[in-house]
Protein backbone atom coordinates (compact mmCIF):
# COMPACT_ATOMS: atom_id res chain seq x y z
CA UNK A 1 0.00 0.00 0.00
CA UNK A 2 2.90 2.29 0.72
CA UNK A 3 4.26 1.57 -2.72
CA UNK A 4 0.92 2.43 -4.29
CA UNK A 5 0.77 5.64 -2.29
CA UNK A 6 4.04 6.51 -4.01
CA UNK A 7 2.41 5.93 -7.37
CA UNK A 8 3.21 2.24 -7.97
CA UNK A 9 0.12 0.96 -9.73
CA UNK A 10 1.46 -2.61 -9.91
CA UNK A 11 1.54 -2.72 -6.12
CA UNK A 12 -2.10 -1.79 -6.02
CA UNK A 13 -3.00 -4.49 -8.53
CA UNK A 14 -1.23 -7.05 -6.39
CA UNK A 15 -3.13 -5.95 -3.32
CA UNK A 16 -6.37 -5.95 -5.21
CA UNK A 17 -5.93 -9.45 -6.63
CA UNK A 18 -5.09 -10.74 -3.18
CA UNK A 19 -8.05 -9.25 -1.34
CA UNK A 20 -10.81 -8.80 -3.87
CA UNK A 21 -12.47 -12.18 -3.28
CA UNK A 22 -12.38 -11.94 0.48
CA UNK A 23 -13.84 -8.45 0.45
CA UNK A 24 -16.49 -9.34 -2.05
CA UNK A 25 -17.66 -12.35 -0.08
CA UNK A 26 -17.64 -10.44 3.16
CA UNK A 27 -19.87 -7.82 1.60
CA UNK A 28 -22.05 -10.34 -0.13
CA UNK A 29 -22.72 -12.28 3.07
CA UNK A 30 -23.15 -9.16 5.08
CA UNK A 31 -25.56 -7.43 2.74
CA UNK A 32 -27.16 -10.50 1.10
CA UNK A 33 -27.85 -8.44 -1.99
CA UNK A 34 -25.70 -8.50 -5.07
CA UNK A 35 -26.41 -4.99 -6.25
CA UNK A 36 -25.57 -3.57 -2.85
CA UNK A 37 -22.51 -5.78 -2.73
CA UNK A 38 -21.24 -4.51 -6.07
CA UNK A 39 -21.86 -0.95 -5.10
CA UNK A 40 -20.15 -1.16 -1.74
CA UNK A 41 -17.30 -3.23 -3.14
CA UNK A 42 -16.47 -0.45 -5.57
CA UNK A 43 -17.00 2.20 -2.96
CA UNK A 44 -14.67 0.45 -0.54
CA UNK A 45 -11.83 0.43 -3.02
CA UNK A 46 -12.53 4.00 -4.03
CA UNK A 47 -12.25 5.14 -0.46
CA UNK A 48 -9.09 3.17 -0.04
CA UNK A 49 -7.59 4.79 -3.11
CA UNK A 50 -8.60 8.23 -1.92
CA UNK A 51 -7.09 7.60 1.51
CA UNK A 52 -3.90 5.93 0.25
CA UNK A 53 -1.62 8.68 1.51
CA UNK A 54 -3.08 8.42 4.99
CA UNK A 55 -2.30 4.73 5.26
CA UNK A 56 0.08 3.83 8.07
CA UNK A 57 1.44 0.31 8.36
CA UNK A 58 0.42 0.07 12.01
CA UNK A 59 -2.32 -2.42 11.23
CA UNK A 60 -2.67 -5.19 8.68
CA UNK A 61 -3.87 -4.09 5.30
CA UNK A 62 -6.75 -6.57 5.62
CA UNK A 63 -7.88 -4.92 8.82
CA UNK A 64 -7.82 -1.49 7.18
CA UNK A 65 -9.69 -2.71 4.16
CA UNK A 66 -12.34 -4.48 6.21
CA UNK A 67 -12.66 -1.44 8.45
CA UNK A 68 -13.64 0.65 5.46
CA UNK A 69 -16.02 -2.02 4.23
CA UNK A 70 -17.55 -2.48 7.65
CA UNK A 71 -18.26 1.21 7.99
CA UNK A 72 -20.01 1.22 4.65
CA UNK A 73 -22.04 -1.84 5.58
CA UNK A 74 -23.14 -0.33 8.85
CA UNK A 75 -24.14 2.87 7.09
CA UNK A 76 -26.18 0.83 4.66
CA UNK A 77 -27.87 -1.09 7.44
CA UNK A 78 -28.76 2.09 9.25
CA UNK A 79 -30.34 3.49 6.18
CA UNK A 80 -32.22 0.33 5.26
CA UNK A 81 -33.74 -0.91 8.46
CA UNK A 82 -33.50 -0.58 12.21
CA UNK A 83 -31.18 -2.93 14.03
CA UNK A 84 -32.52 -5.67 16.24
CA UNK A 85 -32.46 -4.64 19.85
CA UNK A 86 -30.41 -6.63 22.36
CA UNK A 87 -33.63 -7.79 24.01
CA UNK A 88 -34.86 -9.30 20.76
CA UNK A 89 -31.58 -11.08 20.34
CA UNK A 90 -31.73 -12.54 23.83
CA UNK A 91 -35.25 -13.81 23.22
CA UNK A 92 -34.14 -15.58 20.08
CA UNK A 93 -31.19 -17.11 21.85
CA UNK A 94 -33.37 -18.37 24.74
CA UNK A 95 -35.62 -20.05 22.26
CA UNK A 96 -32.62 -21.62 20.59
CA UNK A 97 -31.42 -23.09 23.85
CA UNK A 98 -33.71 -26.07 23.47
CA UNK A 99 -32.98 -29.26 25.36
CA UNK A 100 -30.41 -31.37 23.65
CA UNK A 101 -32.71 -34.34 23.81
CA UNK A 102 -35.28 -32.44 21.84
CA UNK A 103 -32.90 -31.62 19.05
CA UNK A 104 -32.72 -34.10 16.16
CA UNK A 105 -29.31 -35.60 15.85
CA UNK A 106 -28.86 -36.91 12.40
CA UNK A 107 -26.15 -36.63 9.87
CA UNK A 108 -26.65 -34.12 7.10
CA UNK A 109 -25.26 -34.24 3.66
CA UNK A 110 -22.50 -31.75 2.88
CA UNK A 111 -24.76 -29.90 0.54
CA UNK A 112 -27.37 -29.65 3.22
CA UNK A 113 -24.74 -28.47 5.70
CA UNK A 114 -23.63 -25.68 3.42
CA UNK A 115 -27.21 -24.69 2.75
CA UNK A 116 -28.03 -24.57 6.42
CA UNK A 117 -24.91 -22.58 7.18
CA UNK A 118 -25.87 -20.12 4.51
CA UNK A 119 -29.38 -19.82 5.93
CA UNK A 120 -28.04 -19.50 9.44
CA UNK A 121 -25.72 -16.69 8.37
CA UNK A 122 -28.55 -14.87 6.72
CA UNK A 123 -30.65 -15.12 9.82
CA UNK A 124 -27.95 -13.91 12.17
CA UNK A 125 -28.27 -10.44 13.60
CA UNK A 126 -26.00 -7.99 11.80
CA UNK A 127 -23.48 -7.56 14.59
CA UNK A 128 -23.09 -11.30 15.09
CA UNK A 129 -22.94 -11.99 11.39
CA UNK A 130 -20.30 -9.34 10.85
CA UNK A 131 -18.24 -10.61 13.74
CA UNK A 132 -18.48 -14.17 12.42
CA UNK A 133 -17.63 -13.10 8.86
CA UNK A 134 -14.70 -11.01 10.01
CA UNK A 135 -13.41 -14.08 11.76
CA UNK A 136 -13.97 -16.78 9.14
CA UNK A 137 -13.68 -14.70 5.98
CA UNK A 138 -11.19 -12.05 7.04
CA UNK A 139 -9.25 -14.28 9.42
CA UNK A 140 -9.16 -11.54 12.04
CA UNK A 141 -8.65 -12.09 15.74
CA UNK A 142 -10.80 -10.82 18.59
CA UNK A 143 -8.85 -7.59 18.99
CA UNK A 144 -8.92 -6.81 15.30
CA UNK A 145 -12.63 -7.46 15.11
CA UNK A 146 -13.11 -5.26 18.12
CA UNK A 147 -11.04 -2.51 16.48
CA UNK A 148 -13.10 -2.66 13.35
CA UNK A 149 -16.50 -2.84 14.95
CA UNK A 150 -15.68 -0.54 17.80
CA UNK A 151 -16.57 -3.15 20.38
CA UNK A 152 -14.59 -4.50 23.27
CA UNK A 153 -12.90 -7.85 23.25
CA UNK A 154 -15.53 -9.47 25.50
CA UNK A 155 -18.33 -8.05 23.43
CA UNK A 156 -16.81 -9.60 20.33
CA UNK A 157 -16.49 -12.91 22.09
CA UNK A 158 -20.11 -12.72 23.16
CA UNK A 159 -21.27 -11.94 19.63
CA UNK A 160 -19.33 -14.86 18.27
CA UNK A 161 -20.73 -17.17 20.91
CA UNK A 162 -24.28 -16.18 20.08
CA UNK A 163 -23.60 -16.54 16.38
CA UNK A 164 -22.20 -20.04 16.82
CA UNK A 165 -25.18 -20.99 18.97
CA UNK A 166 -27.61 -19.86 16.29
CA UNK A 167 -25.73 -21.71 13.59
CA UNK A 168 -25.61 -24.85 15.63
CA UNK A 169 -29.30 -24.51 16.33
CA UNK A 170 -29.94 -24.32 12.60
CA UNK A 171 -27.96 -27.52 12.14
CA UNK A 172 -29.85 -29.24 14.91
CA UNK A 173 -33.26 -28.35 13.62
Amino acid sequence: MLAYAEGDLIAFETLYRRHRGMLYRFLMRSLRHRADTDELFQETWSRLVAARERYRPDAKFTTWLLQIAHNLVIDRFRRQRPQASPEETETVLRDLDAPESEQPDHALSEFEQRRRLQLALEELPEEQRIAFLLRVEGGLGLDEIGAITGAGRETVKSRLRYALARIRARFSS
Partner: protein
Amino acid sequence: MTTSRDRDQDLNRLLDDDGGEFGTLYRRLPRAEPPRRLDRAVLGNAARAVHGQTPYRHRWVVGFGSVAGVVLAAGIAWHVGQDALRQQSLNESGTGAAVVIPVQPITSTKHRHTTDAMKVDSTALAPMPAEPEPTAKAAKPQIMAPQVRAKSESVPPMPRPTPPPAAPMATPAPFPVAPTQSTNAPPAADAARGRAGDSTRAAPAQTSELREQSAPTRMRGSGAPAPSSSLELRRDMQLAPDDWLAHIRQLLHQDRRQQATESLRLFHATHPQHPLPADLQALLE
Protein backbone atom coordinates in the same frame (compact mmCIF):
# COMPACT_ATOMS: atom_id res chain seq x y z
CA MET B 1 -29.51 -28.24 26.22
CA THR B 2 -26.73 -26.17 24.73
CA THR B 3 -24.61 -25.11 27.64
CA SER B 4 -22.32 -22.16 27.89
CA ARG B 5 -19.44 -24.63 28.06
CA ASP B 6 -20.35 -25.96 24.62
CA ARG B 7 -20.52 -22.43 23.25
CA ASP B 8 -17.07 -21.66 24.63
CA GLN B 9 -15.75 -24.80 22.97
CA ASP B 10 -17.28 -23.75 19.65
CA LEU B 11 -15.74 -20.30 20.04
CA ASN B 12 -12.33 -21.68 20.85
CA ARG B 13 -12.48 -23.98 17.86
CA LEU B 14 -13.61 -21.06 15.69
CA LEU B 15 -10.63 -19.03 16.90
CA ASP B 16 -8.26 -21.84 15.99
CA ASP B 17 -6.21 -21.48 12.87
CA ASP B 18 -8.46 -23.77 10.86
CA GLY B 19 -11.65 -22.12 12.14
CA GLY B 20 -13.00 -25.28 13.64
CA GLU B 21 -16.04 -27.10 12.37
CA PHE B 22 -17.90 -24.07 11.13
CA GLY B 23 -14.84 -22.42 9.75
CA THR B 24 -14.15 -25.43 7.61
CA LEU B 25 -17.75 -25.64 6.51
CA TYR B 26 -17.76 -21.94 5.68
CA ARG B 27 -14.79 -22.36 3.38
CA ARG B 28 -16.76 -24.93 1.45
CA LEU B 29 -19.44 -22.45 0.61
CA PRO B 30 -19.50 -21.11 -2.94
CA ARG B 31 -16.70 -18.61 -3.21
CA ALA B 32 -18.23 -15.65 -4.96
CA GLU B 33 -15.89 -13.39 -6.90
CA PRO B 34 -16.43 -9.83 -8.05
CA PRO B 35 -17.38 -9.53 -11.70
CA ARG B 36 -14.80 -8.33 -14.19
CA ARG B 37 -16.53 -5.04 -14.71
CA LEU B 38 -15.89 -4.26 -11.06
CA ASP B 39 -12.25 -5.20 -11.47
CA ARG B 40 -11.94 -2.83 -14.40
CA ALA B 41 -13.73 -0.06 -12.56
CA VAL B 42 -11.60 -0.36 -9.45
CA LEU B 43 -8.30 -0.66 -11.28
CA GLY B 44 -9.23 2.18 -13.59
CA ASN B 45 -10.07 4.37 -10.66
CA ALA B 46 -6.78 3.53 -9.00
CA ALA B 47 -4.87 4.26 -12.20
CA ARG B 48 -6.63 7.57 -12.69
CA ALA B 49 -5.82 8.54 -9.14
CA VAL B 50 -2.14 7.79 -9.70
CA HIS B 51 -1.95 9.44 -13.11
CA GLY B 52 -3.92 12.41 -11.91
CA GLN B 53 -1.33 12.85 -9.24
CA THR B 54 1.61 13.16 -11.62
CA PRO B 55 0.70 16.50 -13.15
CA TYR B 56 0.43 17.98 -9.68
CA ARG B 57 3.99 16.96 -8.97
CA HIS B 58 5.21 18.32 -12.28
CA ARG B 59 3.02 21.38 -12.40
CA TRP B 60 6.12 23.56 -12.47
CA VAL B 61 6.87 22.20 -15.93
CA VAL B 62 3.59 23.60 -17.21
CA GLY B 63 4.24 26.92 -15.54
CA PHE B 64 7.76 27.12 -16.86
CA GLY B 65 6.58 26.28 -20.35
CA SER B 66 3.92 28.95 -20.23
CA VAL B 67 6.38 31.60 -19.10
CA ALA B 68 8.86 30.57 -21.77
CA GLY B 69 6.17 30.81 -24.40
CA VAL B 70 5.18 34.28 -23.30
CA VAL B 71 8.80 35.43 -23.29
CA LEU B 72 9.35 33.99 -26.75
CA ALA B 73 6.23 35.68 -28.08
CA ALA B 74 7.27 38.99 -26.54
CA GLY B 75 10.73 38.65 -28.08
CA ILE B 76 9.32 37.98 -31.51
CA ALA B 77 6.92 40.90 -31.18
CA TRP B 78 9.77 43.17 -30.13
CA HIS B 79 11.89 42.09 -33.09
CA VAL B 80 9.04 42.63 -35.49
CA GLY B 81 8.44 46.06 -34.01
CA GLN B 82 12.11 46.95 -34.32
CA ASP B 83 12.14 45.86 -37.95
CA ALA B 84 9.06 47.92 -38.64
CA LEU B 85 10.61 50.96 -37.00
CA ARG B 86 13.84 50.46 -38.92
CA GLN B 87 11.93 50.15 -42.14
CA GLN B 88 9.91 53.23 -41.32
CA SER B 89 12.99 55.26 -40.51
CA LEU B 90 14.60 54.09 -43.73
CA ASN B 91 11.56 55.19 -45.67
CA GLU B 92 11.53 58.50 -43.91
CA SER B 93 15.19 59.07 -44.49
CA GLY B 94 14.61 58.27 -48.12
CA THR B 95 11.88 60.87 -48.26
CA GLY B 96 14.09 63.31 -46.43
CA ALA B 97 16.88 62.80 -48.91
CA ALA B 98 14.53 63.57 -51.71
CA VAL B 99 13.60 66.87 -50.14
CA VAL B 100 16.43 69.28 -49.66
CA ILE B 101 16.92 70.46 -46.15
CA PRO B 102 15.41 73.86 -46.42
CA VAL B 103 17.97 76.41 -45.62
CA GLN B 104 16.08 78.89 -47.62
CA PRO B 105 13.05 78.81 -45.35
CA ILE B 106 15.24 79.95 -42.55
CA THR B 107 16.23 82.93 -44.54
CA SER B 108 12.83 83.65 -45.92
CA THR B 109 10.97 83.28 -42.66
CA LYS B 110 13.56 85.29 -40.95
CA HIS B 111 13.02 88.04 -43.37
CA ARG B 112 9.53 88.47 -42.03
CA HIS B 113 10.94 89.31 -38.67
CA THR B 114 14.10 91.19 -39.36
CA THR B 115 14.98 93.96 -41.69
CA ASP B 116 13.06 95.97 -44.16
CA ALA B 117 15.56 95.09 -46.78
CA MET B 118 14.61 91.51 -46.39
CA LYS B 119 10.97 92.38 -46.68
CA VAL B 120 11.41 92.13 -50.37
CA ASP B 121 12.23 88.53 -50.01
CA SER B 122 9.48 87.92 -47.53
CA THR B 123 6.95 89.58 -49.76
CA ALA B 124 8.31 87.43 -52.45
CA LEU B 125 7.16 84.55 -50.35
CA ALA B 126 3.72 86.04 -50.08
CA PRO B 127 2.39 84.23 -53.10
CA MET B 128 2.70 81.07 -51.11
CA PRO B 129 -0.32 81.62 -48.91
CA ALA B 130 -1.08 78.00 -48.88
CA GLU B 131 1.67 77.67 -46.36
CA PRO B 132 0.02 76.21 -43.32
CA GLU B 133 0.54 77.77 -39.97
CA PRO B 134 2.00 74.65 -38.38
CA THR B 135 4.83 74.76 -40.85
CA ALA B 136 5.70 78.28 -39.88
CA LYS B 137 5.61 77.26 -36.28
CA ALA B 138 7.82 74.33 -37.02
CA ALA B 139 10.29 76.60 -38.69
CA LYS B 140 10.41 79.01 -35.81
CA PRO B 141 13.03 77.20 -33.77
CA GLN B 142 15.30 77.30 -36.77
CA ILE B 143 14.75 81.01 -37.04
CA MET B 144 15.36 81.88 -33.49
CA ALA B 145 18.73 80.29 -33.26
CA PRO B 146 20.47 82.65 -35.70
CA GLN B 147 18.81 85.67 -34.11
CA VAL B 148 20.11 84.81 -30.72
CA ARG B 149 23.51 84.31 -32.20
CA ALA B 150 23.33 87.64 -33.94
CA LYS B 151 22.54 89.43 -30.73
CA SER B 152 25.17 87.81 -28.66
CA GLU B 153 27.73 87.74 -31.42
CA SER B 154 28.89 84.50 -30.00
CA VAL B 155 29.05 81.40 -32.05
CA PRO B 156 27.76 78.47 -30.09
CA PRO B 157 28.18 75.12 -31.65
CA MET B 158 25.53 74.52 -34.20
CA PRO B 159 23.24 71.71 -33.34
CA ARG B 160 23.87 68.84 -35.63
CA PRO B 161 21.28 68.49 -38.29
CA THR B 162 18.88 65.81 -37.28
CA PRO B 163 18.90 63.45 -40.18
CA PRO B 164 15.87 61.19 -40.28
CA PRO B 165 13.68 62.49 -37.45
CA ALA B 166 13.78 66.00 -38.80
CA ALA B 167 12.75 64.80 -42.18
CA PRO B 168 9.03 64.75 -41.44
CA MET B 169 9.29 68.37 -40.38
CA ALA B 170 10.97 69.25 -43.62
CA THR B 171 8.70 67.13 -45.74
CA PRO B 172 5.99 69.76 -46.08
CA ALA B 173 8.40 72.04 -47.81
CA PRO B 174 7.50 75.65 -47.41
CA PHE B 175 8.14 76.15 -51.06
CA PRO B 176 6.36 73.56 -53.06
CA VAL B 177 7.78 74.90 -56.22
CA ALA B 178 6.67 73.39 -59.42
CA PRO B 179 9.41 71.32 -60.97
CA THR B 180 9.17 73.21 -64.22
CA GLN B 181 9.91 76.43 -62.47
CA SER B 182 12.88 75.16 -60.62
CA THR B 183 14.39 73.30 -63.52
CA ASN B 184 13.81 76.07 -65.97
CA ALA B 185 15.17 78.76 -63.75
CA PRO B 186 18.44 80.17 -64.97
CA PRO B 187 21.52 79.55 -62.90
CA ALA B 188 22.02 83.21 -62.24
CA ALA B 189 18.55 83.72 -60.99
CA ASP B 190 19.63 86.21 -58.40
CA ALA B 191 20.71 88.54 -61.13
CA ALA B 192 17.36 88.29 -62.79
CA ARG B 193 15.66 88.83 -59.48
CA GLY B 194 17.69 91.95 -58.84
CA ARG B 195 17.12 93.17 -62.36
CA ALA B 196 13.43 92.82 -62.59
CA GLY B 197 12.59 93.27 -58.96
CA ASP B 198 9.80 90.89 -59.56
CA SER B 199 9.37 89.44 -56.18
CA THR B 200 6.81 86.94 -57.23
CA ARG B 201 9.31 85.21 -59.44
CA ALA B 202 12.29 85.76 -57.29
CA ALA B 203 11.34 83.39 -54.55
CA PRO B 204 10.80 80.39 -56.74
CA ALA B 205 13.97 81.12 -58.52
CA GLN B 206 15.81 81.38 -55.26
CA THR B 207 14.35 78.14 -54.12
CA SER B 208 15.25 76.49 -57.32
CA GLU B 209 18.82 77.55 -56.78
CA LEU B 210 18.87 75.89 -53.47
CA ARG B 211 17.34 72.80 -54.93
CA GLU B 212 19.90 72.78 -57.66
CA GLN B 213 22.54 72.69 -55.02
CA SER B 214 21.29 69.28 -54.10
CA ALA B 215 21.45 68.15 -57.66
CA PRO B 216 25.13 67.68 -58.16
CA THR B 217 24.89 65.95 -61.49
CA ARG B 218 23.00 68.81 -62.97
CA MET B 219 25.48 71.29 -61.59
CA ARG B 220 28.36 69.31 -62.84
CA GLY B 221 26.80 68.98 -66.22
CA SER B 222 26.36 72.74 -66.54
CA GLY B 223 29.95 73.36 -65.54
CA ALA B 224 28.87 75.18 -62.43
CA PRO B 225 31.11 75.32 -59.39
CA ALA B 226 31.01 72.55 -56.87
CA PRO B 227 27.58 72.37 -55.30
CA SER B 228 27.04 73.83 -51.94
CA SER B 229 24.81 72.19 -49.47
CA SER B 230 22.80 73.36 -46.59
CA LEU B 231 25.39 71.77 -44.35
CA GLU B 232 28.08 73.99 -45.79
CA LEU B 233 25.91 77.02 -45.25
CA ARG B 234 25.23 75.93 -41.73
CA ARG B 235 28.95 75.60 -41.18
CA ASP B 236 29.37 79.10 -42.54
CA MET B 237 26.87 80.33 -39.99
CA GLN B 238 29.10 79.06 -37.25
CA LEU B 239 31.90 81.33 -38.33
CA ALA B 240 32.55 84.73 -36.87
CA PRO B 241 31.38 87.55 -39.15
CA ASP B 242 34.86 88.46 -40.32
CA ASP B 243 35.82 84.88 -40.84
CA TRP B 244 32.58 84.29 -42.67
CA LEU B 245 33.36 87.17 -45.05
CA ALA B 246 36.85 85.86 -45.51
CA HIS B 247 35.39 82.50 -46.31
CA ILE B 248 33.08 84.06 -48.88
CA ARG B 249 36.06 85.71 -50.51
CA GLN B 250 37.81 82.40 -50.51
CA LEU B 251 34.85 80.88 -52.28
CA LEU B 252 35.08 83.59 -54.90
CA HIS B 253 38.73 82.84 -55.35
CA GLN B 254 37.86 79.24 -55.85
CA ASP B 255 35.46 80.30 -58.56
CA ARG B 256 32.48 79.13 -56.50
CA ARG B 257 30.53 82.24 -57.10
CA GLN B 258 27.11 80.75 -56.62
CA GLN B 259 27.93 79.37 -53.26
CA ALA B 260 29.62 82.59 -52.31
CA THR B 261 26.46 84.45 -53.25
CA GLU B 262 24.31 82.17 -51.18
CA SER B 263 26.62 82.38 -48.28
CA LEU B 264 26.75 86.17 -48.52
CA ARG B 265 22.97 86.35 -48.63
CA LEU B 266 22.76 84.20 -45.59
CA PHE B 267 25.42 86.32 -43.92
CA HIS B 268 23.46 89.47 -44.57
CA ALA B 269 20.31 87.90 -43.20
CA THR B 270 22.08 86.70 -40.12
CA HIS B 271 24.07 89.87 -39.48
CA PRO B 272 21.98 92.66 -40.98
CA GLN B 273 23.85 95.36 -39.04
CA HIS B 274 27.22 94.19 -40.20
CA PRO B 275 28.41 96.37 -43.09
CA LEU B 276 29.07 94.47 -46.23
CA PRO B 277 32.45 95.04 -47.89
CA ALA B 278 32.23 96.82 -51.19
CA ASP B 279 33.84 93.97 -53.09
CA LEU B 280 31.21 91.57 -51.89
CA GLN B 281 28.22 93.86 -52.17
CA ALA B 282 28.24 93.33 -55.90
CA LEU B 283 27.30 89.74 -55.31
CA LEU B 284 23.99 90.73 -53.84
CA GLU B 285 23.08 93.03 -56.69
